[in-house]
């Protein structure tokens, strides 16, 4: 009896598999492998602060993707405090729900190097975004700040024109943040090739708009014939713009800056002439790069800390003349979408 039953069962299984074979053949093994590798994985973003356009944009695009493949996406908000960021990384590594991928927006070249190493040792992939650091992360996604500085300088030279005073002013960020240091290096490279253009002043704003306004006021006071100013971030360039406005030099001083490409922060200001040119980050593409890397690393099976990739976002200087409806992204629209 036992044998008969076994035979019957075998026949049944055979029959089922024979009849259902065509549908098996059409099954793509990809999605199952994809889903198995990604499902339930945790991704955490620790920017310098959650309160500014870039971080909110990244979080939006990352969350959308991570939710879609069934992972967990979290953010931490150090609110510009370096210690709080370090604490957030430490907590993340040691918690029971250790993230599988940690995306870090480093405030300077060195602060988080040890912590990121620890994270990799614990098995967490580390992605650096926007600001490079002295640390071989699994991948860096962001601007090539040197190149970005070159683009700014080229835009400033173009904005000045050949018959101008050829005097440039810089409003740097600070002397610690890599984005500021490399931007400066890039600008200087272009100026070496254009020796008739001179930097007449290069104060720091410490990323603060009021300070930017005060130093720019002094700069314009000392050199009223400056033809272009490069402010290292749109977050404080409103200050430089105010100084230009106050000095009644609107239209005479070409203001170049860089930013996350948010509509009110960049495109609106290009439109109304506050900024002459803005080197904007293509946020959607940058976030897309991060998403691709996350998906790749989680499926690769390679241990954290074994790869070292640089994915530089394509940048270009945008002026009022080449503004398009899709030049910028709209934070308000993203927030409205998220609220739905």
């Amino acid at each position, binding site marked *: 009896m036992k044998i008969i039953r076994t035979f019957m069962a075998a026949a049944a299984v055979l029959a089922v598999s024979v009849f259902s074979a065509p549908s098996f053949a059409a099954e793509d093994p990809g999605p199952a492998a994809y889903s198995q590798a990604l499902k339930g994985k945790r991704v955490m973003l620790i920017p310098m*602060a959650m*309160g*500014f*356009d870039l971080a*909110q944009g990244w979080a939006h695009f990352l969350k959308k993707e991570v939710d879609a493949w069934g992972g967990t996406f979290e953010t931490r908000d150090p*609110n*510009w*405090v370096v210690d709080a960021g370090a604490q957030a990384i430490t907590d993340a590594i040691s918690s029971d729900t250790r993230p599988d991928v940690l995306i870090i927006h480093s405030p300077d070249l060195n602060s988080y190097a040890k912590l990121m190493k620890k994270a990799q040792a614990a098995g967490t992939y580390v992605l650096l975004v926007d600001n490079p650091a002295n640390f071989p992360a699994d991948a860096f996604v962001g601007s090539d700040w040197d190149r970005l500085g070159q683009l700014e300088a080229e835009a400033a030279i173009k904005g000045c024109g050949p018959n101008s005073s050829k005097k440039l002013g810089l409003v740097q960020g*600070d*002397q610690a943040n890599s984005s500021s240091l490399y931007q400066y290096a890039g600008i200087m490279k272009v100026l070496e090739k254009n020796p008739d253009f001179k930097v007449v*002043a*290069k*104060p*720091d704003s*410490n*990323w*603060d*708009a*009021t300070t930017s*306004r*005060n*130093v720019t*006021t*002094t*700069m314009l*006071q*000392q050199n009223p014939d400056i033809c272009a100013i490069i402010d290292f971030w749109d*977050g*404080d360039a*409103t*200050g430089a*713009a*105010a100084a230009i*406005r*106050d000095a009644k030099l609107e239209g005479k001083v070409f203001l170049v800056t860089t930013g996350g490409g948010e509509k*009110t*922060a960049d495109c609106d200001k290009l439109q109304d002439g506050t900024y002459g040119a803005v080197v904007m980050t293509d946020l959607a593409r940058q976030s897309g790069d991060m998403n691709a890397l996350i998906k790749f690393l989680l499926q690769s099976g390679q241990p954290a800390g074994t790869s070292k990739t640089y994915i530089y976002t394509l940048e270009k200087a945008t002026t009022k003349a080449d503004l398009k409806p899709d030049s910028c992204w709209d*934070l308000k629209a993203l*927030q409205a979408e998220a609220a739905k």
Partner: protein
Amino acid sequence: MNAIGWPNWRSLNQEGIVFAIAVVLFAAAAIGLPGFIDPNNLVAIVRSVSVLGILALGMAVVIIGRGIDLSAVAIMAMSVAWYLQLLNSGTPDGLAFAYVLAGVIAIGLLNGFLVAYADVPAIFVTLATGSFVFGYVRSQLISQDAVPVPQGHWVELLGGLRFLDIPVEVFIFAGLAFVFFLFLRFTKWGRYVYFAGDNPVAARNIGIPVRPMLVLRYVLSAFVALVAGLLTAASLHSINTRIVNSTLLYDIVLVAVIGGIGLSGGRGGVRNVLVGAALIGILLNAMTIIDIPLLYQNLIKAAILLGAIIVDGFINPRDEQTAQQGDI
């Protein structure tokens, strides 16, 4: 000054020292730096310290009354950020301003009440309320750090206002300084601030309403912070709440203290704020003209501060008679 006109070195106090340093710096910059003495640059100097000076006026009144208000910068940035956020989301202007004014006064009252009636040290109370104001507004009421001024709004127009080519905040600073001077010097409650700061217990014993006045000072400081915030937004066409993390708060205390307002209370006045603000303004402007990097600027600022304090220590040594209880 004695009969032949030499300054009497024994009577030189910190205010005098800082004033002397400011004059020397001014003279040196006027000779050595091209364009420093230009009237437009002098206006720019005053303007660059106007908001700082306005905040320092509020701080000065609190410090003279033997307190300190560490929530000033948080109130300044967050009240205006909330105001602009309300406007941007379509709240009628009058209503939005009423909300914000009520909020600012409420925080001032809370500060004053906790210090005066709950006897919690001012430094802890205001540190806590400052963090609370920042955290609550940032997380609940606004959606990002930088909030723009709506186009064509009166705050934006205020920023463009000029009289004789001088920005409006210079006049507001001067006006507020004069009002504070009148208040501290010529009103009964103004004089009481000194009594209460010098010796609160004695002031209470002679019948001065020490506690209600204390509450008033914190409300005043909060209101001044709102004015400073509006002026900042007026000039920049936006307010960035990141300023709460900056060194602005220390700079405010610095301006008050370097000018000679003792942290132990009961001493100083508007003149001290003006002297302190003048020194900082001249110093920053000269260093920017020379193009000194920010790191060195901070070093130089700190060195001059330390120098002033050390010289003050030599000229006015502390002893049992000059030291006060609660001296920091």
